């Protein structure tokens, strides 16, 4: 049986696997028709390979010069840029990726710790407020005859003992600054009553 033309074409290119190459060879020695086809395809391949071609040398030299010129111009260009010395705020800075990551992490920690300490300061201030509250007792004046309450506790005791209501005037220290701290004891007491 004769092989397909496609196989003969592959045979011309040396692209037929080993057991088949020998079989084809044997076939070509027997079959005149296939041998003629092989010759045709081979001569076609030869015709293409030996076809006259334009001389590549001038093009080779021209292209080489252009590439060389192109690259030297490029390096010259970058040299010129370096000579010019851009002002520092216009200069590009290359930061390697690991360094950039490290930098962002450090910045994050800085910000985080800043806010953390701010929070601590707030609680410290609140503590201060309490100190103020403890050290400078509120001046309480109760305009009742024979009664003088010097501080809140005395007043509260008074209010507990005697079952009466009375106008009370409280003076707070003028220079004190207030932040909300804890439960309003006095108010709660009044409401309970």
């Amino acid at each position, binding site marked *: 049986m004769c092989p397909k*033309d*496609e196989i003969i*074409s*592959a045979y011309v*290119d*040396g*692209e037929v696997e080993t057991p088949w190459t020998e079989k084809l060879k044997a076939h070509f020695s027997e079959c005149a028709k296939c041998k003629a086809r092989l010759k*045709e*395809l081979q001569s*076609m*391949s030869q*015709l*293409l*390979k030996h*076809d*006259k*071609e*334009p001389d*590549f040398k001038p*093009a*080779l030299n*021209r*292209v*080489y010069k*252009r*590439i060389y010129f*192109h*690259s030297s111009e490029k390096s010259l260009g970058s040299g010129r840029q370096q000579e010019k010395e851009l002002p520092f705020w216009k200069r590009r800075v290359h930061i390697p990726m690991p360094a950039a990551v490290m930098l962002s992490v450090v910045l994050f920690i800085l910000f985080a710790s800043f806010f953390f300490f701010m929070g601590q300061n707030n609680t410290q201030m609140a503590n201060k407020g309490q100190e103020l509250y403890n050290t400078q007792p509120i001046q309480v004046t109760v305009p009742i005859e024979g009664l003088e309450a010097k501080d809140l506790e005395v007043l509260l005791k008074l209010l507990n003992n005697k079952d009466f209501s009375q106008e009370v005037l409280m003076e707070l220290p003028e220079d004190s600054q207030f932040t909300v701290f804890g439960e309003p004891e006095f108010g709660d007491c009044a409401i309970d009553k």
Partner: protein
Amino acid sequence: MLKKTKDREERFNEEYPILFPIIYRVSYRITGDEAISEDLCHEAFIKYYERHEPLPDINQAKYWLIRVVKNMSLNYEKKRMREKNAVSKLEKITPQYMESTEKEVLKEETKIVVQEALDKLPYKLRVVLVFKEYAQLNYKEIGAILGISEGNVKVRIFRARERLEKILKEESAYVSEG
């Protein structure tokens, strides 16, 4: 850094004289035009020169350059097809005039019959045959460059040869008639 560029330049200078004739030949056989082949080579070699990662060896460089040329030649082919269509439209309008001049051209340039026949092949078939005959690539390498199977390469090469035979026969008959 400086040493690196020096090494690269040295390697380029070694490879260039070996690779240029192959790449130029492939370009010329695909496009059929000397000036365009030179431009294609120029672009391809500049791209190669500016490549950051060096290729392992000269064979890889050859495949790489062939692939680049092939991609660029496709753009040229599209442009050429547009022009060809425009010409064939013109031919329809003035058939006799075009025919006679074509005959004259053929009579004058019987030498470049092979290239003309190649030009008449469809691009897909032409590229495969050019890679086989002019770049000495095997089916496997051609398949890798074009992203097709070896079997497909085999079929395309055979079809290209069949078509080329037909074109050459027609052309020689045409020339001997005229």
